[in-house]
């Protein structure tokens, strides 16, 4: 049970829609997708991706050279956006560097550095390029270690890597650490970057669409992969009247299959119900759900069952993956922050690229943006291995 709501006093994002909250907000309001035809090096798959421009030019400072890889560059760009790093510096003065925890979600970290090392290995000796540093790029802790050092924090820090629920679960863990007294505030985040492993990996499971993805769509045929970084500073006291709080969360497992969700979404139902219970809310009090909505036939079908079972069909919901693509380990927090934008700017996003809902699905996802008061929003994230996490955000009265 959440012991008291945690306020998101600052947050930042970077994704295919651009750098910062303003870029994402404008693209959401304009119904303008950030997806583009895949032009990632060495990838010849016919698909669309959510690529962040400018990462190639955004080198790390010399003192962070050993961390250099696409994923950590993206992390840095996210930390510099929206004045986030400055906000954390101020918080560090208030709380102490050792009293702010760091909890970052990622699914592939800097694996692209290893992919590249294999491609450029000496054909005779097999030796890798002398600049290849596995520990500070590929290793899963790399992104958290980089973020921690970039922000000058010395408290507890860990990476959560549970596939597509990673940067939703960071909110739950941060809450628990603060409740336990191991830190007084937390930086939570999610970072995932384009790499061949996920492009070809999802493709091998026939889960990648050759077109812009159509969540809940008739004839939908898979995901588009995106990259993103997003961060939030969580504090027990609000910074301003407008601050949004994490009101509750629910985590569960499917215990069903490694790469297919439970057909009736029972694990997802459990996560949503636990989140409502944690927040002390009834289903009808939720104004909007940002669905996991990956646009695979199986996810959307299973999530449709689950949402209908818990909420019925009378609430506003949509998937925003048509804007950013599926940002995998960064999806949880990216979409959580889209919920915050919805609350702050009083609109529920539609479901971009989908013009016709699958008639077999019963939940009437919004196709177009709708202006409406959103006081309380839920965000769903479900991943391989049957990991489920639902988060609830709202203004605490």
């Amino acid at each position, binding site marked *: *049970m959440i012991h008291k709501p945690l306020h998101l006093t600052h947050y930042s994002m970077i994704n295919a829609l651009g750098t910062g909250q303003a870029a994402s907000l404008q693209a959401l309001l304009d119904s303008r997708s950030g997806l583009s035809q895949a032009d990632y090096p060495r990838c010849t798959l016919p698909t669309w991706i959510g690529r962040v421009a400018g990462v190639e030019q955004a080198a790390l400072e010399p003192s962070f050279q050993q961390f250099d890889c696409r994923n950590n560059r993206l992390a840095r760009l996210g930390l510099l956006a929206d004045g986030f790093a400055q906000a954390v510096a101020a918080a560090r003065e208030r709380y102490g560097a*050792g009293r702010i925890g760091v909890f970052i979600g990622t*699914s592939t970290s800097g*694996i692209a550095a*290893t*992919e590249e090392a*294999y*491609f450029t290995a000496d054909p005779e000796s*097999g030796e*890798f390029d002398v600049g290849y540093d*596995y*520990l500070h790029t590929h*290793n*899963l*802790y790399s992104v*958290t*270690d980089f973020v*921690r050092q970039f922000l000058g924090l*010395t*408290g*507890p*820090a*860990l*990476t*959560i*890597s*549970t*596939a597509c629920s990673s940067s939703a*679960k960071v909110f*739950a*863990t941060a809450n*628990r*650490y603060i*409740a*336990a*007294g*191991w830190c007084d505030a937390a930086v939570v985040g999610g970072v995932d970057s384009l790499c*061949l*492993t996920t492009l*070809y*990996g*999802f*493709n*091998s*499971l026939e889960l990648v669409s050759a077109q812009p993805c159509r969540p809940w769509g008739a004839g939908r045929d898979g995901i588009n992969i995106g990259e993103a970084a997003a961060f939030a500073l969580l504090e027990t006291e609000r910074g301003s009247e407008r601050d949004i709080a994490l009101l509750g969360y629910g*985590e*569960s*497992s*499917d*215990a*069903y*299959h*490694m*790469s297919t969700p439970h057909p009736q979404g*029972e694990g997802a139902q459990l996560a949503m119900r636990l989140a409502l219970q944690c927040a002390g809310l009834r289903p009808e009090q939720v104004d909007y759900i940002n669905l996991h909505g990956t646009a695979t036939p199986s996810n959307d079908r299973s999530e449709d069952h689950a949402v209908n079972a818990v909420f019925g069909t009378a609430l506003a919901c949509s998937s925003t993956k048509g804007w950013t693509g599926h940002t995998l380990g960064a999806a949880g927090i990216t979409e959580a922050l889209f919920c915050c934008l919805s609350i702050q700017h009083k609109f529920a996003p539609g479901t971009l690229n989908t013009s016709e809902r699958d008639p077999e699905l019963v939940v009437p996802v919004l196709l177009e943006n709708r202006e409406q008061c959103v006081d309380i929003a839920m965000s769903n994230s479900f*991943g*391989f*291995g*049957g*990991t489920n996490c639902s988060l609830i955000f709202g203004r605490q009265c």
Partner: protein
Amino acid sequence: MRFYVKGVGLVAPGLASWQEGRAVLAGQLPYQAQPLAAFSSTLLPPNERRRTTTLIKLALRVAEDALQGYPGSPVELASVFSSAEGDAEVADKICRTLLMPDRPVSPTQFHNSVHNAAAGYWAIASGSRCCSTSIAAGRESFSLGLMEAVSVALQSQQDVMLLAYDSPLPPPLQGRGYVDAPFAVALIISAQAGTGAWIEIGMTMTGERCTQPVLSMELQALRMTNPAAASLPLLALLAAGNAGTVSLPCGAECSLKLEVRPC
């Protein structure tokens, strides 16, 4: 804060299970590294079993070891999986596959590449729909895993299984990471004393270090080969059935002080 231990699992060269390893860890027998015998999960159905990797088998093995003598049911256990490297063997296979024309990554390899793969197989094996988290925290992966597990136990009032496990990096990546030898430890913990609790541990996060139980040179050397082996000073106390205090680094400037008491 306080938590209770209801089960311990251990898998390492020369310490093939908690029962077999206790005498060595208590200092009654010398430590001798022996290669681990092959393992086949008793809980996972055969069609899933044949897809498991070396690392996943290591995690399942230590989980099943911890369940020996645990009075509860695995279906009710929440879990925390902590691995500093994750499955580098799978990553290596995928990277080599990417070098081939058409880059024919196999679906099984891909879903095995997620860091929570072991947790996914464990959920299928145990039937548990409870909260499960998979983390990585470099050299402090055991300490941070323990903190996560304790925090889940306190909040949910459920028993929680912590697994910390790592397998050596495959030859192309050898020596580049945190792991030189396999090691896995599991603790089943609870926020309440109750059936099956035989150790009480008081836990404090602090800046201080304190004196550790003395480990033999061989066990000290083992401790350096794998982040999960950071648990060895704690395991030594548990094995001897003694009260004592252990401190484990849990960050750049913090330690976990664990005050152990048989109960």
